[in-house]
C-alpha cells in the first residue's frame, strides 16, 4: 500500500515536472526576448525624437504602441499559463483515472 502510494506520488511529480520544465523554458525565452526588444524600442524612439526622424505625431503613435505591446506581453503570458494549466490538469486527471482503472 505504502509502496503504491509512493509510486503514485512519484508519477504525479514526474508528470507535472515534465510539463512545467518544458513550458517554463519557452516562457523564459519569450520573456527575455520581449523585455529586451521593448527596451530597445524605447531607446530607438528616444533617439528618433532627438534626431528629428520621429515627429510629434509619430512620437504619440509609438508611445501608444509601447503601451499596447506591454499590455499584450502580459496577456500573452496569461494565455500561455492557461495552456500550461490545461495540459497539467488533463495529464493528471488522465493518470489518476487510469490509476483507478477508468478509461477516459
Amino acid at each position, binding site marked *: 500500500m505504502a509502496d503504491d502510494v509512493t509510486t503514485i506520488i512519484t508519477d504525479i511529480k514526474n508528470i507535472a515536472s515534465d510539463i512545467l520544465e518544458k513550458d517554463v523554458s519557452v516562457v523564459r525565452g519569450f520573456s527575455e526576448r520581449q523585455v529586451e526588444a521593448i527596451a530597445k*524600442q524605447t531607446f530607438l524612439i528616444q533617439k528618433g525624437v532627438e534626431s528629428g*526622424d520621429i515627429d510629434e505625431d509619430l512620437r504619440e503613435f509609438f508611445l501608444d*504602441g509601447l503601451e499596447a*505591446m506591454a499590455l*499584450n506581453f502580459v496577456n500573452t503570458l496569461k494565455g500561455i499559463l492557461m495552456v500550461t494549466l490545461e495540459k497539467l490538469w488533463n495529464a493528471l486527471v488522465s493518470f489518476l483515472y487510469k490509476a483507478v482503472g477508468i478509461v477516459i
Partner: protein
Amino acid sequence: MHFKLLCQKILPLQILLVLLAFSSCEATLAPAYDQAIVGKVTESSDLAMRFFAEVDGGTTNESFAMREPIYNTLIGAFESLKLQAKARPVPNNTALEKINELLKSKGSGAISGEYPSAFAFEQIALTFKKMKETDREQGIKPLALQAFKGQIEIFLDQAITYESFLKR
C-alpha cells in the same frame, strides 16, 4: 523571472483547486491550435521582413506609388489573420468562469475572447496603416522606419509564440 511573478500574482494553486472543484474530467481552457493561422503568419511575416529589407534606410514620398500595393497586401493579410484568430470559439466552462472570478478578485484582467494573437495582428495592421500614411505624406526617415519595424517584430513575436504554444 516574469513568469515567476505572474505565477505568484494569479496564484496557480488556487486555480488548480478551482479546476479540481469544477471540472469533471478533461478541461479546455484555451482555443484550439490552427495550422492555417500559423502557416499564414509565417508567410505574412516573411513578406513583411522582405519589405523592410527593401526599404532599409528610409523612403521618400515620390516613390510611394511603387510600395502602395505591398502596404495593401500586408494590411489585408494581418486584418484577415485577426479575423481568423478571433473566429475560434472561446472555451466556456465553469472552471474558466471561476478562474476569471479569481483573477478579478486579485485585481487582474479576465481571460476573454480577446486572444493575445488577435490583438497583436490588429496592432500589426494598424502599424502598417500608419506607416503607409506617413510614407505617402512625407516619406519615412531611417529611425522612424526602424521603430515601425521594431513595433511589428514585437507584436509578431507575441502572436507567433502564443499560436505555436496552442499546439499541445
